[in-house]
C-alpha cells in the first residue's frame, strides 16, 4: 500500500466534506498509516524573515491535531553563524488552549494555526543566510503522538541598516525594558499616561529640580510687569520648548544612532552653560546688592533681561536648552523611548512618549510659574530677597553642572562658594528685616558653618557636599578594571575569562557620565560589592572619545552609551537581560548580581 496517494485521497475526501473528522478517516485495519496524517501533513511548517531582525515561524495544523507549547524550540545552526554574532531571542508565542493531561498536567496547546515571532540580535550588515533548527511536537486528538520533529531551514535575512538587539525575555525585565514594552504594545492613551506620570516623578529628581530655579529666575526677572497669566504663559513657553527638544532630540538621537546626550555633555558646552548660570546669578545679585563694575553690570543685566523678560521665544529657547542639560541623568524613561524609536522606527509612539514625559516633567514648573505670578507681589523689598534667593539657586545649578569638570578635591570648594554667598545674603537680610531677623541670623550662622566645614572637608579629601567630613570613600582604591577599546578586545577578554571560568563585568564609562562617577565613588567602593566581584574579570570601556572603535562597541551592544554595565556568565555568554543602566546603590547592585545568578544567594 502506498501512503501518499491514500493520504492525498483522505485529504480530498475531507475537503469535499464526506469525511467529517479528518483525523479519524480510517481506511483499513492493516494499513495504519492511512488512519492518521503523516507528521508533515499534520503540521505544515514554514518560516520566513519578516525583517532584518525578525523571523516568523508558522504551522498550519490539521483539524484534530495540536502542538505542545512547551515543546517548541528554535536554535541557530552555528555552522551558518561562524562569527557567532547572531543570537536568537525567545519565541513569541500566542496564548494557546489549556489541555488537561492526566500525566503531564495542564498543557498549553495550539490548534489549527500557530504563528511564532522569533526576534534576533545581529550586527548591521547586508543580506545573510541563517540556518535554524526548529523542533516541535504534537499529537492528534484521536490518541496518536508524533515524536519531536526537527526541521532544518535556511532563512535569508534582509540587510540591516543598524544593529538589532533582543527584546527582553519573560521573567526579569529591567526598568527601561518594561517601559519599552509599554511604548510598543500598550494603547496610546495608556502609554501617554504612563510617560506623563513618569515625567511627573522625574520632576522631583535632581535631574529636573534645577529647572525650577531657572524658570523661577526668568519669571522673577519679569519684575513689576508680571501678571499671573503672563507668568503662566511664560512657564508654558518654557515647558513646551523643553518638550519639543525632548521629542525632536529623541528622534534625532535614535535615527542618527549616536549619543546626543554625550555631545551635550561635552565639557565645553557644560562649561558654557555653567557660566551662563553664573552670569544670571550675578545679574540677580548685581542689580541690587553686589556692586559690579558699572559697565559689566549694565551689559550683564541687559543681556539677562533680554533673555528673561523680552520674548516668549527666548523663554522657549531657554527651555529647549535646559532640556538638553537636564537629560544628563540618563533617565530610564528617556532610554526606553530611545530604544524603542531606534528599534521599531516607531517615531510617532516614541516621540509621543517623550513629549508626554516632558509635559509631565514640566507640570510642576507650570505650577511654580502660575503660582509665582500669583504670589510674587507687585513690588517691594520682598522681591529683592526672592531674587537673591534665586541667584543662589542659579549658582548651585552652575556648580552642579561644573563640578564634574573639576578634580574631586576641588568639588567641596566649589560647593562652598554659593553656600558662602547665601550666608552673606542672610547676614545682610538679618540687619534689614525688623521682624524675624533672628531667623535670618541663625540661617546665616548655619550656612557660614556649613561652608567652613566644606572647606575643611575639602582639605581633608572629602568630595560629597552632603557629607563633607566623610573621607573614607576616597581612600578605597578603584576596582582593578582592565581597559578595553574595541569589540575584538572585548571578545578576547571574554574568551580568556570564559576559559578560566570567570564571570565578566563590562562597565561603560565616560568622563562626562555623572552616574559612572557616582558608581565608582559610592558603589564600587562598597566592601559588599568588592566581595561579590572578587575573582571576576572587570572590563571598562572608556567611550569619552566616542570615536570609531567606541561607536562600534556601542553598536555591538545596541546601546547609546554609558551609564551601562553588562555582565557575562562564566560560560562566556552575556546576561543581556541583566544589564544595568544608571546609578545603582551597593546593596541593589549585589542583589542584582544574585538575581542574575552571578553571585551566591547568601552573603
Amino acid at each position, binding site marked *: 500500500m502506498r501512503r501518499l496517494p491514500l493520504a492525498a485521497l483522505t485529504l480530498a475526501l475531507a475537503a469535499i466534506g464526506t469525511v*467529517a*473528522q479528518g483525523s479519524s478517516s480510517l481506511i483499513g*485495519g492493516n494499513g495504519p498509516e492511512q*488512519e*492518521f496524517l503523516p507528521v508533515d501533513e499534520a503540521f505544515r511548517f514554514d518560516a520566513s524573515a519578516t525583517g532584518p531582525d525578525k523571523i516568523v515561524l508558522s504551522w498550519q495544523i490539521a483539524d484534530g491535531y495540536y502542538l505542545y507549547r512547551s515543546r517548541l524550540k528554535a536554535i541557530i545552526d552555528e555552522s551558518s553563524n561562524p562569527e557567532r554574532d547572531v543570537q536568537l531571542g525567545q519565541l513569541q508565542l500566542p496564548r494557546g488552549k489549556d489541555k488537561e493531561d492526566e500525566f503531564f498536567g495542564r498543557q498549553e496547546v495550539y490548534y489549527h494555526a500557530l504563528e511564532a515571532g522569533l526576534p534576533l540580535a545581529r550586527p548591521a550588515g547586508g543580506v545573510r543566510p541563517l540556518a535554524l533548527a526548529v523542533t516541535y511536537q504534537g*499529537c492528534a486528538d484521536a490518541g496518536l503522538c508524533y*515524536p519531536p520533529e526537527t526541521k532544518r531551514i535556511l532563512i535569508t535575512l534582509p540587510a540591516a541598516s543598524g544593529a538589532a538587539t533582543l527584546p527582553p525575555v519573560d521573567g526579569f525585565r529591567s526598568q527601561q525594558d518594561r517601559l519599552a514594552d509599554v511604548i510598543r504594545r500598550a494603547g496610546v492613551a495608556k502609554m501617554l499616561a504612563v510617560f506623563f506620570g513618569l515625567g511627573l516623578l522625574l520632576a522631583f529628581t535632581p535631574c529636573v529640580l534645577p529647572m525650577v530655579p531657572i524658570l523661577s529666575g526668568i519669571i522673577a526677572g519679569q519684575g513689576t510687569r508680571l501678571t499671573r497669566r503672563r507668568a503662566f504663559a511664560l512657564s*508654558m513657553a518654557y515647558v513646551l520648548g523643553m518638550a519639543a527638544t525632548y521629542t525632536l532630540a529623541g528622534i534625532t538621537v535614535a535615527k542618527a544612532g549616536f549619543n546626543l546626550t554625550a555631545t551635550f555633555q561635552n565639557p565645553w558646552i557644560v562649561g558654557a552653560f555653567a557660566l551662563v548660570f553664573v552670569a544670571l546669578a550675578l545679574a540677580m545679585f548685581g542689580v541690587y546688592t553686589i556692586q559690579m563694575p558699572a559697565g559689566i553690570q549694565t551689559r550683564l543685566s541687559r543681556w539677562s533681561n533680554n533673555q528673561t523678560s523680552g520674548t516668549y521665544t527666548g523663554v522657549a529657547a531657554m527651555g529647549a536648552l535646559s532640556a538638553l542639560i537636564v537629560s544628563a541623568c540618563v533617565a530610564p524613561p528617556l532610554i526606553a523611548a530611545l530604544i524603542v524609536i531606534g528599534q521599531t522606527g516607531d517615531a510617532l509612539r516614541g516621540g509621543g512618549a517623550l513629549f508626554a514625559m516632558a509635559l509631565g516633567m514640566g507640570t510642576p514648573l507650570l505650577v511654580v510659574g502660575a503660582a509665582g505670578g500669583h504670589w510674587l507681589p507687585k513690588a517691594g523689598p520682598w522681591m529683592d530677597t526672592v531674587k537673591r534667593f534665586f541667584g543662589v539657586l542659579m549658582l548651585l545649578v552652575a556648580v552642579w553642572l561644573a563640578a564634574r569638570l573639576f578634580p574631586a578635591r576641588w568639588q567641596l570648594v566649589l560647593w562652598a562658594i554659593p553656600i558662602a554667598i547665601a550666608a552673606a545674603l542672610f547676614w545682610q537680610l538679618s540687619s534689614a528685616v525688623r521682624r524675624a531677623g533672628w531667623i535670618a541670623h541663625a540661617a546665616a550662622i548655619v550656612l557660614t558653618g556649613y561652608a567652613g566645614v566644606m572647606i575643611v572637608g575639602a582639605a581633608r579629601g572629602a568630595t560629597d557636599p552632603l557629607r563633607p567630613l566623610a573621607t573614607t570613600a576616597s581612600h578605597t582604591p578603584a576596582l582593578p578594571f582592565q581597559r578595553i577599546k574595541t569589540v575584538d578586545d572585548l571578545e578576547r577578554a571574554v574568551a580568556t575569562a570564559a576559559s578560566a571560568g570567570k564571570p565578566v563585568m563590562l562597565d561603560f564609562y565616560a568622563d562626562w557620565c555623572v552616574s559612572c562617577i557616582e558608581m565608582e565613588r559610592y558603589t564600587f567602593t562598597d566592601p559588599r560589592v568588592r566581595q561579590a566581584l572578587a575573582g571576576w574579570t572587570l572590563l571598562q570601556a572608556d567611550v569619552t572619545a566616542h570615536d570609531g572603535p567606541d561607536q562600534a562597541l556601542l553598536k555591538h551592544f545596541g546601546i547609546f552609551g554609558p551609564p551601562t554595565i553588562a555582565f557575562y556568565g562564566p560560560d562566556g555568554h552575556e546576561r543581556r537581560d541583566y544589564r544595568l543602566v544608571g546609578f545603582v546603590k551597593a546593596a541593589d547592585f549585589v542583589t542584582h548580581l544574585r538575581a542574575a545568578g552571578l553571585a551566591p544567594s547568601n552573603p
Partner: protein
Amino acid sequence: MPGMRMIVLGALLAITGGLTGYGLYNRLFSEKAVINAVSSPIESPEKQDRSIPDRLPDITLANRDGRPTAIRSFDARILVVNFWATWCAPCRREIPLLRQLRAERGRSQGLEIVGVAVDFRDAVLAYADRIGLDYPLLIGEEDGLEALDAFGVPNAFPASVFVDREQRIVAVKLGELHADEAAFILDRVHDVNENKLDLSMAKQQIARKLQELASLRARQQAEGDAARVGSANPGH
C-alpha cells in the same frame, strides 16, 4: 494672548514637521521598507514508503536487563507488540488496558504483550518501575526507530501490532488502543488461532470494525466537545 498662541503653534508645527520628515525619510530610504525575505528548506528527509510485512519481522532489542532479545523469541499464541514512549500521553493511558488484557487472556488464550519503548532507556526504566509495569519490555533508541520501520509503522505513537500463533500479523492499530477495539481484534485473532476464521476474513472484519468504532468515537467526541463533557474514551 497672541504671543502664547504663537509659541504653542510653533512647537506643534516643529514636532509635526519633524515627525512627518522622519516618516518620509523612513519610507523613502530605509531598507526596512522593502524586505525580500526568502526562506528555503535545507533538507527535508524523504521518508521511504513503508508497508506492513505479513510476518513478525526478525528484530532484536535490549530488554530491561540490557540483554539483546529477539522479538520472535516470545512464545505466545497471541502476541501484542505495543510501540510506546514515555513522553506520549495516549501511550501511558493505554498501559493499564494492556495489563488488564494480559491478566484476562494470558492463560486462557495464550496472550503476551511486549512493550517496545522507542525512548531513552533511563526514562523508560524509571517510568516502568514507577507504575509497576509487569509485561516484557524491549527498549531501543536508534534501533527502536529501525524496529518501527521493520514493522512498517510510521514514527508516531502508540501503535499496537497483533500477531497470531504462526507469527503472522493480523492487525495494526495506530494510535491509542481502546477496550472495545482490543476485545474485537483479540477475539478475531483467537478465532484465527482456533482455525475458526480465515486470516484474510479476520483482517477485513477488523478493518471494518475499527473504522466503525473510530467514527462512533469521533461522533461522541464531537458531541462531548459540544456539551463540554470530558473526553470520549469509553474504553477507560
